[in-house]
C-alpha cells in the first residue's frame, strides 16, 4: 500500500503548489505535404495536422481527469515551414500560417509552432520569404508561433539573419501594436534550437524526428519553492541541491507517466520529456521565488547567477533519472513577464537586462518575454540577439531571444498580455549604437568548441 504521507504530498503539490504538466505537444512532420502549388500544399498541411492530432485534446483531457493531474496545454509543433514552402512558386507564404491557424482552431489546441526557418549557416530557398512574412503571419493569426534559428555551435552565427531578425521583431510588434504587441511574444530567435522542444513559442518538429511524436513538458516551480520553504531552513547548499533534485525527480516521474500514457492512447511514439521549470504569473509559481527562497533578498542581486546555476543543474540531475528520454530545453526558464517574482524584481529596478543576460549563460533558455521600449532600433534588437547567440554558441547550449518592443511606451511603463503570458514592465536597454557592427553582415565563424571530431 502506498504511504499516506506520499499520497498527501502529491495532493498538496497539485492543490496548493501549482504542480501540473505544462504541455503535451504533438510533433507532426509535414515533409510529405510539400507541393509546388502553395494552395495544394496548404490543403495537405491542414488535412495532415487535423488527421494526426484529431484525438490530441480529448486524450489530454481524459488523462487529466483520470490521473487528477492538470495538463495545461495541448499543442502541436510542425516541420519548419521554411522547408515545406521551399518549392512553392508563390511567395505568399502567409497562406501556410493561415492553414496552421485554422487547424489549431479546428482541433482546439492553443498554440501551433513551426512557422520557422533554420538559417544558422545560410538561407535556403524559401527561408527568406518565410522570414519576411513572419510579422504579417503573426498579426493575422491567433495561435501560430514562429521561431528562427540564426546560429549554432557547429555553424557559427549568421549575422545576415541576425540583422534581418532585429527588423522582423520590431515589425511584428508594430503590426500588433493595437493588441499589446502580441506578435513579438509569439516569435523566438534561437541559437542551437532543439528539434524536440515541446514549449512555445519555440517549438518545431525537427527533420530528424519520426513522422509524429509526443513530447511532454513538465513544470513545477511552485513545488520546488515550497519544498525549499518547508525543508530548506538552515541547510547548506549541498543539501539544498539535493532537495531540488529529489523534488525534480518526482515532478518528472509524473511527466513521464503522462507522456507514456498519451503516447499509448494516441498510438504515437513517445519522444522526450522536457524537464523544465516553467513559471506562470500565478503567485508562488515563480523561478525567481525559488532563488529568493535560497537566500537572495531579491532576484537580480549578486549571487543570482550562482543560485540559478545550482537550480538548473539540480533540476536536470533529478529529472534525468526519472525519465527514459530527456530532451527539449530541460532546465529553468526565466521569462520575465510570466514570473511574478521576476516582474517584481524588474519593477523595483533590481533586475535589469544585463543581469538577465548573464543568467542566461547558466539556465536553459535566454532573454525571454522581456518588454523593451518601443523606440528601440532594429540594430539594437539585432545586437541583443547576437550577444545572446554568442553565449549559446560558445557554451554549446540553447539560447533564445523573445523581446517585445512596446510600441508607444517608454521604460518604466507596463505592457499587459494577460493569461499565461502575463505582464511586464518596460525595461531599459543599454545605450550606444551597434549599428555599424550589425550592418557588416556575414557570419561569425564557428568556435573551436565545434571541432570535436
Amino acid at each position, binding site marked *: *500500500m*502506498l*504511504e*499516506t504521507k*506520499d*499520497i*498527501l*504530498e*502529491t*495532493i498538496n503539490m497539485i*492543490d496548493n503548489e501549482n504542480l501540473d504538466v505544462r504541455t503535451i505537444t504533438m510533433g507532426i512532420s509535414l515533409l510529405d505535404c510539400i507541393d509546388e502549388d502553395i494552395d495544394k500544399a496548404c490543403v495537405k498541411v491542414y488535412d495532415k495536422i487535423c488527421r494526426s492530432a484529431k484525438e490530441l485534446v480529448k486524450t489530454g483531457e481524459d488523462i487529466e*481527469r*483520470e*490521473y*487528477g*493531474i492538470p495538463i495545461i496545454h495541448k499543442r502541436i509543433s510542425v516541420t519548419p515551414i521554411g522547408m515545406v514552402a521551399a518549392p512553392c512558386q508563390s511567395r505568399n507564404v502567409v497562406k501556410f500560417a493561415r492553414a496552421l491557424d485554422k487547424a489549431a482552431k479546428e482541433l482546439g489546441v492553443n498554440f501551433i509552432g513551426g512557422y520557422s526557418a533554420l538559417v544558422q549557416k545560410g538561407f535556403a530557398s524559401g527561408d527568406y520569404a518565410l522570414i519576411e512574412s513572419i510579422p504579417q503571419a503573426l498579426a493575422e493569426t491567433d495561435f501560430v508561433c514562429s521561431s528562427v534559428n540564426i546560429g549554432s555551435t557547429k555553424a557559427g552565427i549568421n549575422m545576415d539573419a541576425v540583422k534581418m531578425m532585429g527588423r522582423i521583431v520590431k515589425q511584428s510588434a508594430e503590426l500588433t501594436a493595437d493588441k499589446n504587441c502580441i506578435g513579438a511574444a509569439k516569435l523566438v530567435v534561437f541559437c542551437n534550437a532543439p528539434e524536440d522542444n515541446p514549449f512555445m513559442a519555440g517549438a518545431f518538429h525537427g527533420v530528424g524526428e519520426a513522422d509524429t511524436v509526443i513530447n511532454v513538458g513538465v513544470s513545477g516551480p511552485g513545488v520546488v519553492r515550497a519544498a525549499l520553504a518547508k525543508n530548506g531552513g538552515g541547510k547548506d547548499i549541498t543539501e539544498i541541491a539535493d532537495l531540488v533534485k529529489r523534488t525534480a525527480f*518526482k515532478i518528472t*516521474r*509524473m511527466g*513521464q*507517466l503522462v507522456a507514456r500514457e498519451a503516447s499509448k492512447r494516441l498510438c504515437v511514439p513517445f519522444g522526450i520529456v522536457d524537464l523544465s521549470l516553467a513559471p506562470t504569473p500565478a503567485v508562488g509559481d515563480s523561478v525567481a521565488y525559488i532563488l529568493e527562497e535560497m537566500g537572495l533578498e531579491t532576484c537580480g542581486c549578486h549571487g543570482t547567477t550562482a543560485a540559478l546555476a545550482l537550480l538548473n543543474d539540480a533540476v536536470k540531475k533529478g529529472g534525468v533519472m526519472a525519465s527514459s528520454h530527456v530532451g527539449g530545453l530541460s532546465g529553468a526558464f526565466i521569462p520575465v513577464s510570466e514570473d511574478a517574482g521576476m516582474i517584481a524584481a524588474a519593477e523595483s529596478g533590481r533586475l535589469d537586462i544585463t543581469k538577465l543576460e548573464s543568467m542566461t549563460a547558466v539556465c536553459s533558455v535566454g532573454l525571454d518575454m522581456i518588454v523593451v521600449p518601443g523606440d528601440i532600433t532594429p540594430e539594437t534588437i539585432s545586437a541583443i540577439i547576437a550577444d545572446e547567440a554568442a553565449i549559446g554558441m560558445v557554451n554549446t547550449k540553447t539560447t533564445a531571444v523573445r523581446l517585445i518592443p512596446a510600441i508607444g511606451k517608454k521604460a518604466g511603463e507596463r505592457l499587459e498580455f494577460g493569461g499565461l503570458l502575463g505582464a511586464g514592465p518596460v525595461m531599459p536597454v543599454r545605450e550606444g549604437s551597434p549599428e555599424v557592427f550589425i550592418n557588416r553582415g556575414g557570419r561569425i565563424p564557428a568556435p573551436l568548441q565545434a571541432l570535436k571530431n
Partner: protein
Amino acid sequence: MKAVITVIGKDAVGILAKVSDACAKASVNIVEVTQSVLQDMFAMIMLVEIDKSTVGFDELRENLNAVGDSTNTKIHIMHEDIFNSMHRI
C-alpha cells in the same frame, strides 16, 4: 484498474459512511482504507477497484465531489499509478 480516493477536511460524523455508500452504489470495491485524525483534521485514503464500476469515472468523481460538498471535505479520486510513479523507483 485501481484508484486512490483521498478525503481531507475537518472531522465529522459519518464521512466514512457517506464515501463508502457512494462507492457501494457504483459497485466500486474498497480494497484498503487508512485513516488518520490529526488535530481535528481528517485524512482518509482508500484504495478502490473500479473495473466493475457501474458508472463512468467522471460520474464517480462528481458523486464523490458531491459527498465532499455535503461533508465539507475535499475529495479526490486519482489513478493509483500517479502515486506509484512519483514515490516508487
